[in-house]
């Protein structure tokens, strides 16, 4: 028996790869519909968007993710846009990463069609602007001078929903969706300098860096990785704003199963490790 566990601590990596592949593919093909528990940081973002009056000042979503972090951030964009468009909350879309231009535009157009929202009245996409921090600061001075034209070449001064929007003072919430350090830059440059209310949607690896800002309330809320996106989807669905399950919820089934498989391998590895040390007459080092 001991020999069996010791062998389990030296499993060939190809078998691990096989288990990983199976644990991801099966839940994607046959959704398991695991229940979701919503964290307070996700609920905080939902509540802010939920309290913005319909057809009032727009929220700003900054798409800052590329195809590599798309599986985590794109479902967040879909869920927040569904929530906003269902409640007739206006949305300004920008990107600070060239990679994200196509993705951001696709997300806005897709969800706008789903809720029959009109470009220029309910939403606007201003496209990509290089300079990251300079753009964040410049929006604080004048949005329309920072983006003189939208993504399609139309002067922003002629777009109806932007007539009353000059800077962060008219934007009730800024939501950067990112897998990079720009999540913190928004807090420093838009939040601290211009008192903009910021809620981040970040990849899971980025989330641990932002807890300090959540505690100080500089960050109003946070969607952390695919889990955060799935929680937001759950809230949007529970509130009756959509009937569709959403990409993150389906992805979360696969991710949860994968986590369980990894946990199982770690347990097996440690049992084997202890048994092999005991067999060799060594205890754990302090």
């Amino acid at each position, binding site marked *: 028996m001991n020999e069996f566990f010791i062998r389990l601590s030296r499993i060939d990596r190809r078998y691990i790869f096989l288990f990983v592949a199976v644990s991801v593919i099966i839940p994607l093909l046959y959704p398991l519909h695991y229940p979701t528990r919503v964290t307070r940081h996700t609920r905080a973002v939902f509540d802010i968007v939920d309290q913005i009056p319909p057809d009032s000042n727009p929220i700003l979503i900054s798409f800052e993710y590329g195809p590599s972090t798309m599986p985590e951030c794109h479902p967040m964009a879909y869920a927040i846009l569904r929530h906003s468009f269902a409640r007739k909350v206006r949305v300004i879309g920008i990107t600070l990463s060239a990679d994200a231009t196509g993705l951001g535009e*696709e997300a806005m157009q897709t969800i706008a069609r789903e809720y029959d929202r009109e470009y220029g009245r309910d939403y606007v996409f201003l496209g990509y602007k290089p300079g990251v921090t300079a753009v964040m600061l410049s929006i604080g001075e004048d949005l329309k001078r920072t983006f003189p034209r939208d993504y399609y070449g139309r002067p922003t001064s002629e777009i109806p929903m932007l007539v009353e929007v000059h800077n962060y003072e008219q934007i009730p919430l800024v939501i950067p969706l990112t897998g990079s350090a720009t999540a913190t830059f928004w807090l420093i440059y838009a939040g601290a300098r211009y008192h903009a209310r910021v809620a981040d949607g970040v990849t899971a690896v980025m989330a*641990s860096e932002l*807890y300090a800002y959540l505690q100080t309330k500089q960050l109003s809320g946070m969607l952390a990785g695919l889990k955060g996106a799935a929680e937001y989807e759950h809230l949007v669905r529970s509130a009756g704003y959509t009937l569709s399950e959403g990409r993150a919820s389906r992805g979360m089934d696969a991710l949860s199963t994968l986590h369980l498989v990894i946990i199982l391998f770690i347990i097996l590895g440690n049992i084997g490790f202890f048994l092999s040390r005991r067999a060799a007459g060594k205890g754990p080092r302090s």
Partner: protein
Amino acid sequence: MKRRIPLTICLFCGLFFTIQFFIPHHQVRQVYADGLRWLIVVATFAIVMALGSLITHHGRKVRRRDKDWSYSLVTLLALLGMSIAGFATGTRPGTLFNKLFLNVQVPMQSTMFGILAFYIASASYRAFRARSKEATLLLLSAFLLMLSAVSFIGYYFPRITAISEWLLMVPNMASQRGILFGVFLGTLATSIKIILGIERGWMGGGR
């Protein structure tokens, strides 16, 4: 002259952007806003420089037939192909550029990132062993965090979620805050050195 002019511009801009923060006069705000737009223009030039650097680097590798030069050739061809598609058809939905981006670049880049899951699973299996007290602590916290990330565990065992949140909000935040203080004090010190011309590495020239 070649060094003095950039150093003077740097000193002037550095001091102005610092001082303007404390002067809410409308004329100062106007100069500041103009300065920010200049910054955006300069950032655009950086993209042109990056493009030039990419072409020079990979072009040299292809010309000299250096190791793995074929990958450099693919990079250059892809750059040329996407540029032609972009200039010829535009970048809006339905154009060739957009189709190439959504159906070639997005799946390729996502796949590259997705492969990480396999390596992380294999690495966790080998690395998370209770070899010492410190390793056991790391193992336990990783174990709890992974467990709380499983949807139904968080749902049926809220205490596990509460513990993992405590790990993130207390020990993790304390260390992150320490790191942040260090990073921002370092940034401040380096910025002052650059503004005063003590640190000149940004001008190139190897000094």
